[in-house]
C-alpha cells in the first residue's frame, strides 16, 4: 500500500514539479507545449476542486440543519441562494442577455438579486468601520499616532473637500495633499510592503521546494 499512498504520489509531484519549474526558464516549443497541456489539466482539476468544495459546503450546512445547531436557519439560505441563481442559469443556458438585449432569467437574477445583495453585504463594512473608528481607535502610543497621521493624510487627499481643507490649513507648507500621499505610498508604505512581499516570496519558494522534494507532505493527508 505504501507504494500507492506514498511513493507514487511523491514521485509524480517531484517529476512534474521539476519539469514545470524548468519549463518556466526554458523558452522553447517543447516547454511551451508542455505548459499548454499542464494549463489545460490545471483547469480541469480546478473544476473538480470547485465541485468538491460545493459538495463539502452543502454537507456542512446539511449537518448544521440536521443537528439544529445555533443559527441553523441561516444554513437554509445557502441552498435558497444557490437555487435562486443556478435554476435561472440552467433555464437561460448561462446567458444573461437575450438576442434582443432583454434580460434572461439569469440576467434578472444577477441584476436584481445577486447584485444588490452582494453590494449590501460589502457596504455594511462602512457601518462597522465608523463604529470601530469612534469607539476603539485610541491614539495612546507613538505607533497609533503614526497610523492616524497616515490615515488622516490619505483620507483627506482622497476627497476634493479634504484637499481644500488641506490647502487652507497646511497650504503654507507648499506641499499638496497629492504630494503627501505620493510620499506616503512611495516611501514608508512601499518599504513595508516590499519587505512583506520579499518575505512571502521566500516563504513560497521554500514551501514549493519542500513539496517538490517530499519534505512537506501535508497535502497527502494523514495516512
Amino acid at each position: 500500500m505504501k507504494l500507492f499512498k506514498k511513493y507514487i504520489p511523491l514521485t509524480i509531484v517531484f517529476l512534474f514539479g521539476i519539469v514545470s519549474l524548468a519549463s518556466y526558464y526554458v523558452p522553447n516549443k517543447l516547454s511551451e507545449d508542455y505548459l499548454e497541456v499542464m494549463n489545460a489539466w490545471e483547469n480541469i482539476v480546478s473544476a473538480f476542486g470547485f465541485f468538491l468544495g460545493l459538495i463539502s459546503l452543502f454537507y456542512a450546512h446539511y449537518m448544521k440543519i440536521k443537528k439544529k445547531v445555533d443559527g441553523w436557519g441561516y444554513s437554509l439560505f445557502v441552498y435558497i441562494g444557490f437555487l435562486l441563481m443556478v435554476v435561472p442559469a440552467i433555464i437561460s443556458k448561462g446567458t444573461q442577455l437575450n438576442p434582443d438585449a432583454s434580460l434572461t432569467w439569469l440576467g434578472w437574477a444577477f441584476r436584481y438579486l445577486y447584485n444588490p445583495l452582494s453590494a449590501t453585504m460589502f457596504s455594511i463594512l462602512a457601518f462597522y468601520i465608523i463604529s470601530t473608528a469612534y469607539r476603539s481607535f485610541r491614539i495612546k502610543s507613538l505607533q497609533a499616532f503614526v497610523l492616524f497621521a497616515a490615515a488622516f493624510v490619505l483620507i483627506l487627499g482622497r476627497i476634493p473637500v479634504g484637499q481644500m481643507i488641506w490647502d487652507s490649513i497646511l497650504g503654507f507648507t507648499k506641499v499638496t495633499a497629492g504630494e503627501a500621499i505620493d510620499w506616503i505610498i512611495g516611501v514608508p508604505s512601499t518599504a513595508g510592503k516590499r519587505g512583506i512581499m520579499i518575505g512571502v516570496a521566500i516563504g513560497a519558494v521554500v514551501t514549493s521546494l519542500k513539496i517538490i522534494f517530499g519534505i512537506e507532505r501535508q497535502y497527502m493527508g494523514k495516512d
Partner: protein
Amino acid sequence: MKETIQKLLKIDRRYLFLLLTLSILIPILKPLGLPNKSISRDVKNIYNFMEGLPEGSTIICSIDYDPSTAPELHPQATAIIKHAFKKNIKVIVLTFIPGSTGLIDQLFEKLPAEYGKKYGEDYVVLPYMANIVAVITQLNSNLYSIYEKDKDNKDLKSLPMMKKINNYKDIKGVINITGTAILDYWVAYVGDKFGVPVMGGVTAISQVGYGPYLQKGQLKGLIGGMKGAAEYETLIKEPGKGTSGIDALNVAHLLVLALIIMSNLIMFFFK
C-alpha cells in the same frame, strides 16, 4: 458636564449608523459639486499610455470585480472603455471572477451604441475562466487554445477584430480593473515575463499596496478607488459616476476623521 461628555463615548452605535447614512444620502440627493482639483501621476500615466496608442491597436481589459466593489470600480472600467472607444482602440474583455459577467454585460449595454462601436469589430467579450495563472500564461502562446468561443458561444476566430490576434505580441497593453489580487498575477506572469505593459484599477484601500510595482515600473499606471475614476473622467472630459460618487464620499470620509478626533479628544481631556 464631564459625565455628559464621557457618555458620548458610549453612545449607541445606531446613532453613528444614522449619521453615516445621512452623510452619504444627502450628498447623493443634493450633490456638492466640488471640483476635483488634483490628478495623480499614476492615473495620468494610463491616460498618456492610451493617448499614445495608434488607432486600431488592441488592448486587453481584464474586468475582475463583483457587485461588492462595483461602486468604486465600475466607473473606472467605464472611463477606460469610453477612452478606448474614443481613440478607436479595440478591446478584448475577459474575466476571472464569475460575478463580473453580469457587470460586463451592463458595461457594454449602452456604451458601444453611444460611440458607434460594433461587437466583434471593435470589442469582444470572452467568457469567464477559472485558474487565472494557467490562462494568462497560456495566452502568450495561443489565445485560441484557451478561448475557442466568445461569451455568446460564437467562434472567436471568425470575429473580424480577432483575425490578426494570436497572442500577447498582438496586444499593446493590459488594463486590469479588480477588487482582488488578480492584478499581482498580471504583473508577475504577463508584465514581467512577457514584457506586456500592465496597468491597473483597484479599490482605494488596496491602492497603497501597489507602490513597489509602480516604483519599479512593473505597473505602468494605477487608478485608485472612486477618486481615481473621477480623475480619469476629468482627463477624458466625460464626467460620470466617479465624479458624482466622490461627492458622497466627501462627507462620509470627513465624518470618520471627525469621529476619531472627537473620541480621542474626549479620552484625552475628560477621562
